[in-house]
């Protein structure tokens, strides 16, 4: 990926009454990135996105997009951005086509009919372009949301939970579209999600935030693969397994025992060796569940936030 920074955020903070929605947040998105912006519900993702799009004024901090301060270059910057913020809402009393035509005109000029139909086709709405948006399902509105982000051929696309409300097929189509936009059309994509798996599939860099603050930031492959695995061995006789483990060096890898589950910190290569050792000592293994520590951590903060 290229090193040119598309989004730079320094010390960004926003408080609503006494609640810090975003607290001293820093992040960088480079040109060509598919940047995963992860966090549980209420972590401050949407507030951050709203500040990136000047829907909300930050209390503190600086936002630079395309190398320019947002507050001084708002119009120029927004002309190069396509965005969905939370649920995609449109003028329900107008057709999908008319909505896109109006959005295009507000964005700076007449959009040719061919281009409007092109983006509608890209998201599979070309057959319903005349229907009023109020007759659309949530999934269809979500697709129309994606269509409107692409209308002006933006350099940066900001997608706030774009797969919410979609069926598995719809989710896959959106993921494929994101990959297409990144790889074929060289767009920079800022993808907010609360699903690690979703980000893992499409993003090359990511940040996890919680309570408005950065938890971790970096390359997806580094963050997910370099970390040790937490491997859960579900056994028939945990007491016997425990005393067996305590007699040799595996004990240093043992993290905890919960009911009939022995949890180890292991590398991928160590799993078959420990498995063989337990089986050879007459311990029946019911299941082996590997979990990356980041995934474990993300699951914990997601569950506690939920």
């Amino acid at each position, binding site marked *: 990926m290229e090193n040119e920074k598309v989004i730079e955020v320094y010390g960004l903070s926003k408080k609503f009454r006494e609640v810090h929605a975003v607290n001293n947040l820093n992040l960088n998105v480079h040109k060509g990135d598919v940047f995963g912006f992860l966090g549980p519900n209420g972590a401050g993702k949407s507030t951050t996105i*709203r500040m990136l*799009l*000047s*829907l*909300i*004024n930050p209390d503190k901090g600086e936002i630079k997009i395309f190398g320019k301060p947002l507050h001084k270059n*708002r*119009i*120029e*910057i*927004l*002309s190069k*951005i396509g*965005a969905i*913020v*939370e*649920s995609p*809402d*449109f*003028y*329900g*009393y*107008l057709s999908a086509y008319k909505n896109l035509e*109006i*959005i295009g*005109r*507000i*964005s*700076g000029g007449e959009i040719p009919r061919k281009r409007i139909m092109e983006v509608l086709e890209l998201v599979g709405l070309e057959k319903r372009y005349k229907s009023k948006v109020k007759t659309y399902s949530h999934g269809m509105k979500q697709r129309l949301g994606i269509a*409107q982000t692409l209308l002006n051929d933006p350099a940066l696309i900001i997608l706030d939970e774009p797969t919410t409300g979609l069926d598995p097929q719809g989710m896959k189509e959106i993921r494929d579209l994101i990959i297409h936009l990144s790889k074929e059309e060289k767009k920079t994509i800022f993808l907010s999600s609360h699903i690690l798996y979703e980000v893992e599939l499409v993003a090359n860099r990511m940040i996890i935030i919680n309570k408005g603050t950065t938890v971790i930031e970096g390359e997806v492959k580094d963050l997910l693969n370099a970390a040790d695995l937490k491997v859960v061995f579900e056994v028939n006789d945990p007491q016997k397994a425990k005393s067996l483990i305590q007699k040799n060096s595996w004990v240093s890898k043992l993290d905890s025992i919960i009911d009939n589950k022995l949890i180890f910190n292991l590398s991928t290569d160590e799993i078959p060796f420990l498995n063989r050792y337990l089986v050879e000592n007459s311990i029946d293994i019911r299941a082996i569940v590997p979990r990356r520590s980041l995934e474990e951590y993300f699951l914990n903060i997601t569950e506690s936030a939920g």
Partner: protein
Amino acid sequence: MKMTALINIEIYKIFKKWRTYISFIAIGVLIPIIHIAMMIEGEHSLDYMTRNLKQSFIFVGNLLNGYLISYLILNSLVVHIPFLITLVAGDLLAGEATAGTYRILITRPVSRFKITSSKFLAGIFYTCLLVLFLAIMSLGLGILIFGQGELIVIKSSGIIIFARGDIFWRFLTAYAFASLSMSVVAGLAFLFSSLVENAIGPIVATMAIIIIFIIISAIDVSFFQAIKPYLFTTYMNSWRLLFDNPLNINEILSSVLILLGHVAAFFFAAAYIFNKKDILS
């Protein structure tokens, strides 16, 4: 982005909404009902209005004419038409918040001031169009049904009878003045619309203020009479000054300036609030 294109979009959006037509339907139904009532009861009512005068004067010609009916309808303007104006003006900004479409608008490369201005001007366009429709329905239809004639205006200071050829321009100016009065109402509803995220609030708040101001103005207590000059509703009925003879130009101009000042103040306050507003909807 050109302002004219933005205004056109806003006007298009206004006229694509069902609620916009409620006002036109209401006027389209109400005014013919008044005309029918005047056809049936008009002569009797006119006799009652002029019963004392008839002891001293002889009236000749067509007194129950389109002009008189328009004059009577204009008198109801300050109470009834504002509600129809607020239906649309109160929805201009708050309606976008309710629908969640603020996000579409504000994430586009256009300044918030332009968004506010285009919406406001579209609201003023709707207001003027509604008053024009009222003029066509009351004056146009009135003349068509009842014909033209002299206009008799009864005031506390006396009776004025306007000659047939001296009336039409007064009505045209009066309707222009009415458009300005109603623009103040639209401005106030627009200001409330910038504060909230639901169109009901601006409608109720605007109507509450107008009704309170009218009641205060009507109570004959020196305290209320002292504050009357500071209430914009006092000047909304100044179109009646156009039916004075001779015209008090200074008073008319001063009313126009006061109303224009209110329109500007409400607009700039709304623009300031909207510019600072965090969009959370």
